[in-house]
C-alpha cells in the first residue's frame, strides 16, 4: 500500500457499480434456469421401467427402495418401481447411469415444497420431466453392454461336413469376464422354466467357484451341461443388458462351468434317506431323468422304463450330435443313475409290460414319453420313396444307422427340427438343402441363432411356399409341386395366416423331401380305458398344478404336457411332479 490517503480513496472506486445493472438482484424477476444436464428430482417412465432394481443396488445413500405397484407385470419386467426418499437422495445420478432401459432420469426440476414429510418419499413418474435433465447415455453407461465372446465355434463352412461338436471350447478368462457383466437383478429367472438361480451361479462362475456353481445348478436343474449346450435360453431374452446392448450368454456360461468338472460325484454328494416308496417313470428323457434325480434325493425307489437301448430320449435320439455330443449326455445321465436309479432299457410299456400293472405295483407313476412320432403332410404322393419324416431320420442317424441322402433335399417346416434336419442333410452330403416354410421367415418358430447357423452353413430358406403334391416317377420322388402363399392379417394379437395364391403354383426338382412340420405323441402304451379317463386335449395330457393327471397316482410331464417342448420345460414339469408325488404320498 502506497499511503493512507490512497488507501482511503481506492476502495471508493467500488461506487462505480452503483451505476451498473445489478448482477444478483434481477428486476424484473428472472427465474434461474438450470443447465441441460441438471441433476434434480427423479423422473421415471413407469411404462418403460422394468423394475430391475439396479438403481436401488448402486444408490450410495439407500435412498431408492423398490416398491410393488398395482400393475400386472409385463413379460421381462417386475411390478416393482423405484421409490425415492428425498431426505436421503444425494442427486448423484448413479441410478441413471445403471438404468438398463434409460427410463430413469433426473429432471431439471429442483423445487418441491410440502409441509408434510411423507410427500418427500414417492415413486417418481414423468410429471416432472420437461425435456431437460440428466439422462442415461449408452456411451457413458456403467453397464457392461458389450458381449465378451468366450465360445470358440468351428467355422460354419468347415463344420457342415461332419458330426463333430460345433463348439471347439470355451475361453476361461473371457467366460469369467462375461459372467461378471451380470447386474444380479434376476429378471432372467422369470423366463427360465426351471427357475434356475442365474445371478447366483453367474456370480460363482465370476469368482472361479465352478464347484459351487455346479451345486447351484443341481438345486434346480439336474442336466446342467446339456442345458448349457442346447437349451432354448429364453433367459437371455430377458437379460436387462439386452435392452440396449448384448445379453449375457447365460446358456454357455452354464455349459462352461459344468464342463470344467469331470466327475460330478466328487462335488455333489447327496444324503439319501430311503423312504420305502416306489415310483415308476415311463420315459428316460429329460423329464424322466430330472424326476428320477429329485425323487431319488427324497429317498424314493425309482425305476425308469425306456423303450430305447440308451437313456436320454429326445436329447439322444432327436438332437443331432454336432449340437450335443454323446459324452455330455452320458456324463449327466450316468451321474443321475449313480444315485441308485434303476433302469429297464429296451422296455416298451404296453408291449413288454402292462401299463396297468405299473399303476398297481408302484406307489406312483410318472409318464414322460415325449413326442417321438412325426406328422405327415397329407398331400398326394407322399408315400413315394425319398419322402421322410424328420424325427425318424434324426433318430436313425443318432442310433447309428446309415441313410442314403439325396442330392437336392427339401425340408418342409420352420421349427427347430427343420433346422436340425436340414443341417444334418448337409452333413450327410446333400449338395443343396432348401427349407420350405409356409409363413414368412420372421414367423419361423425356430430360434434365431439356429436359423442363422443353418443359413451360414449353406441351407437356403424359401419362405411362403406350401407343398401341395409330391411328383413321383416309378414310386420315387423327383420333385415337388408347391404354391406361394400370402400373409393375411387376422386382427391384432393374432398370427397372420398364410393363404395360398391360386395362380402361383410352381414345381421344383428334388430327390428327397423331409417333413418337419411337427411331432405327435405315441399313446399306444395306454389302454383305451385310461386314455379316455385322461381327457387328452389336442395331443396333450392335462394335469393339475401338482402335475397329476385325472387318474390318481399318475403324473405326467415333458412334451406330452407342455407346448414349449424343450428340455428346461421338461425339467420344470418333472420338479412339479416330484412335489405332487410327495404331497400325494404324504412324504415330507
Amino acid at each position, binding site marked *: *500500500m502506497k499511503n*493512507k490517503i*490512497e*488507501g*482511503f480513496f*481506492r*476502495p471508493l*472506486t*467500488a461506487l462505480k457499480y452503483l451505476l451498473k445493472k445489478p*448482477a*444478483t438482484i434481477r428486476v424484473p424477476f428472472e427465474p434461474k434456469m*438450470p*443447465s*441441460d*444436464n*441438471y*441433476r434434480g428430482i427423479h423422473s421415471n417412465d413407469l411404462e418403460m421401467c422394468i423394475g430391475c432394481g*439396479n438403481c436401488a*443396488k*448402486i*444408490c*450410495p*445413500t439407500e435412498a431408492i427402495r423398490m416398491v410393488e405397484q398395482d400393475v400386472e407385470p409385463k413379460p421381462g419386467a417386475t411390478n416393482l418401481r423405484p421409490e425415492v426418499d428425498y431426505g436421503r437422495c*444425494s*442427486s*448423484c*445420478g*448413479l441410478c441413471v*447411469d*445403471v438404468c438398463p432401459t434409460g427410463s430413469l432420469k*433426473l429432471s431439471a426440476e429442483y423445487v418441491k415444497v410440502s409441509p408434510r414429510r411423507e410427500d418427500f418419499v414417492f415413486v417418481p413418474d414423468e410429471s416432472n420431466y420437461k425435456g431437460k435433465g*440428466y439422462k442415461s*447415455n449408452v456411451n*457413458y453407461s*456403467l*453397464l*457392461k453392454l458389450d458381449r465378451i465372446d468366450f465360445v470358440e465355434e468351428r467355422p460354419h463352412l468347415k463344420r457342415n461336413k461332419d458330426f463333430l461338436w460345433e463348439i471347439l471350447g470355451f475361453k476361461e478368462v473371457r467366460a469369467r469376464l462375461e459372467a*461378471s*457383466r*451380470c*447386474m*444380479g437383478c434376476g429378471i432372467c429367472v422369470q423366463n427360465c422354466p426351471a427357475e434356475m438361480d442365474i445371478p447366483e451361479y453367474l*456370480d460363482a462362475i*465370476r469368482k472361479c467357484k465352478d464347484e459351487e456353481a455346479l451345486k447351484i445348478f443341481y438345486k434346480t436343474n439336474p442336466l446342467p451341461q446339456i442345458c448349457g449346450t442346447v437349451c432354448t435360453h429364453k433367459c437371455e431374452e430377458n437379460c436387462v443388458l439386452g435392452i440396449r446392448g448384448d445379453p449375457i450368454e447365460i446358456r454357455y456360461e452354464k455349459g462352461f462351468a459344468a464342463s470344467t468338472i469331470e466327475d460330478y460325484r466328487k462335488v455333489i454328494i447327496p444324503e439319501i434317506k430311503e423312504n420305502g416308496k416306489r415310483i415308476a417313470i415311463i420315459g428316460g428323457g429329460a423329464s424322466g431323468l430330472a424326476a428320477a434325480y429329485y425323487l431319488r434325493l427324497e429317498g424314493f425307489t425309482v425305476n425308469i422304463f425306456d423303450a430305447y437301448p440308451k437313456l436320454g430320449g429326445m436329447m439322444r435320439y432327436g438332437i443331432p450330435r454336432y449340437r450335443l455330443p454323446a459324452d455330455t449326455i452320458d456324463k449327466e445321465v450316468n451321474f443321475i443313475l449313480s444315485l441308485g436309479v434303476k433302469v429297464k432299457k429296451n422296455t416298451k410299456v404296453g408291449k413288454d409290460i402292462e401299463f396297468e400293472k405299473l399303476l398297481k405295483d408302484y406307489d406312483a407313476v410318472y409318464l414322460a414319453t415325449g413326442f417321438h412320432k412325426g406328422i405327415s403332410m397329407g398331400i398326394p404322393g407322399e408315400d413315394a420313396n425319398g419322402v421322410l419324416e424328420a424325427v425318424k431320420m434324426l433318430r436313425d442317424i443318432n442310433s447309428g444307422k446309415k441313410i442314403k441322402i439325396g442330392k437336392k433335399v427339401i425340408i418342409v417346416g420352420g421349427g427347430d427340427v427343420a433346422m436340425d434336419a436340414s443341417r444334418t442333410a448337409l452333413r450327410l452330403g446333400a449338395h443343396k438343402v432348401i427349407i420350405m416354410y409356409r409363413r414368412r421367415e420372421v414367423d419361423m418358430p425356430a430360434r434365431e441363432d439356429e436359423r442363422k447357423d443353418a443359413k451360414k452353413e449353406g441351407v437356403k430358406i424359401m419362405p411362403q411356399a406350401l407343398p401341395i403334391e409330391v411328383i413321383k416317377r416309378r414310386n420315387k420322388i423327383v420333385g415337388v409341386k408347391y404354391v406361394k402363399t400370402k400373409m393375411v392379417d387376422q386382427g391384432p394379437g393374432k398370427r397372420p395366416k398364410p393363404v395360398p395364391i391360386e395362380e402361383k403354383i410352381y414345381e421344383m426338382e428334388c430327390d428327397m423331401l423331409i417333413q418337419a412340420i411337427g411331432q405327435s405323441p405315441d399313446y399306444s402304451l395306454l389302454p383305451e380305458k385310461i386314455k379316455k379317463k385322461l381327457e387328452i386335449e389336442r395331443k396333450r395330457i392335462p394335469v393339475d398344478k401338482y402335475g397329476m393327471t385325472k387318474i390318481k397316482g399318475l403324473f405326467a410331464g415333458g412334451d406330452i404336457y407342455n407346448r414349449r417342448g424343450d428340455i428346461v420345460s421338461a425339467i420344470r414339469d418333472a420338479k412339479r411332479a416330484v412335489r405332487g408325488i410327495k404331497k400325494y404320498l404324504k412324504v415330507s
Partner: protein
Amino acid sequence: MKGFEYFIGPQHLGIPGNFGIIVNVDGDTIVKARANPGYLHRAFEKLMERRLYLSNVSVVCRICVFDPDPQEAAYCMAVEEIAKIEVPERAKWIRTMILEFARISSHLIYLGSLTSALGLYTVMQWALTDRDYILDLLEMITGGRVYHIFMQPGGVRRDLPEGFKEKAKKVLDSLKSRLSDYYNLIFDNNIFVHRTRGVGVLDPEWALSMGVTGPNLRACGYKIDVRKDDPYLAYPELDFEVPVLEDCDMYDRAMLRMKEIEQSIRILEQILDRIPDGSVWKPVPNPINWEVPKGESFVRVESARGEVAYYMVSDGEDKPYRVNVRGPSITHGILVLEKVLEGQRLADISPIVFSLDVCAPSIDR
C-alpha cells in the same frame, strides 16, 4: 482463572460451519483458546467401507462443502492407483479444469468471508456473484452446482457440453476484469490493512513442523505445492507459478489467495486452449461387483485449502477395506488455530478463523 470463558460457535456467524471455539479472555485479550469440534462427525471413512467403489464418490465430496472436487479427484486417483487404471488424457485435463475452477470458487468464498468478518460486506456479495458464474460453468459440465459427483474411477462421467469453451472464456474474462476491483476494495483498503497486517501471525518453522499446508504455508515463505512437487493429472504440462509471500499474517494469507486466483485463471486459459480430444472415461468393470485387487495407495492433491491426501487399502473386495482422509482443516482448525489465537483480541477471532480457511466438516469428517 481470571476473566471470562466464551463459547464461540457452533452457532455463530463468525465461524465456518458447525464448529466452536472456547476462549478464555482477560479483558478482550485471549488467554487460551480451545477448538470445540465434533458437531459434524458423519464417519465418512467408515461409510466408505460399506459402499461400492463407484458409489463412494458421492460420499467423499461431502467432506469439504466449499471445495469438494479435490476430494473426488483424490479418491478416484487412489482407486486408480490400486486398480492400475490409466485415465485417458482428456479426462485428466477435464479433472484439472474442474479442480482449478473449484480453487477459484473456494478462494472467492474465502475472500468474501474474511472481509465480511471485518465488516466489508460488499466483497462478500461480489465474491458470491463471481463464484456463482463459476458454479454455472460447473453445473453446465456436471449437472450439479455445489457437489458435482462428476469424477469417477477411470475418468469423468460425461464429456464437456457444447458451447462450454466459449462460455468459460467469457466467465474468465469477466473475472479477470474484476480483479483490480478486488485489489482496490480489499488490499488497498486502510481498514483491511489495519485489521490484518501483523495479526494472526504464524511462526514459519512451527507451521511447517505442525503440518500446515497449502496457501497458509506458502504465506509463510515456503514454496511447497503438490501440483509442482508431486505433479498429478495434467499439471506437469501446464505453465504456472506458485506464489509465495513472507509475512505469515492474515494480510499475506489473503493476498496469496488473490494471486492464486490469477494463476488459476492462467491455468484455465491454457486448458481451454489445449485440451486434447479423445475419450473421457476408461470403463471400469461392472460397478456392482468390481473387486479392486489387493493393494494400497497414497495420493495427494493440492486443494484450495491445503493438501488433501487419501490412503486407501483394498483387500480384494468390492468395497474399500480402509480409507483414511488427511484433510488440511484438522491441522489448521485445531492445532494452528488454538496457538494463533493466543494473545489476540476477541474481535479478531472470526477473521483469524476465516483467514486460516478452516472447513468444519473436514475437521470432523
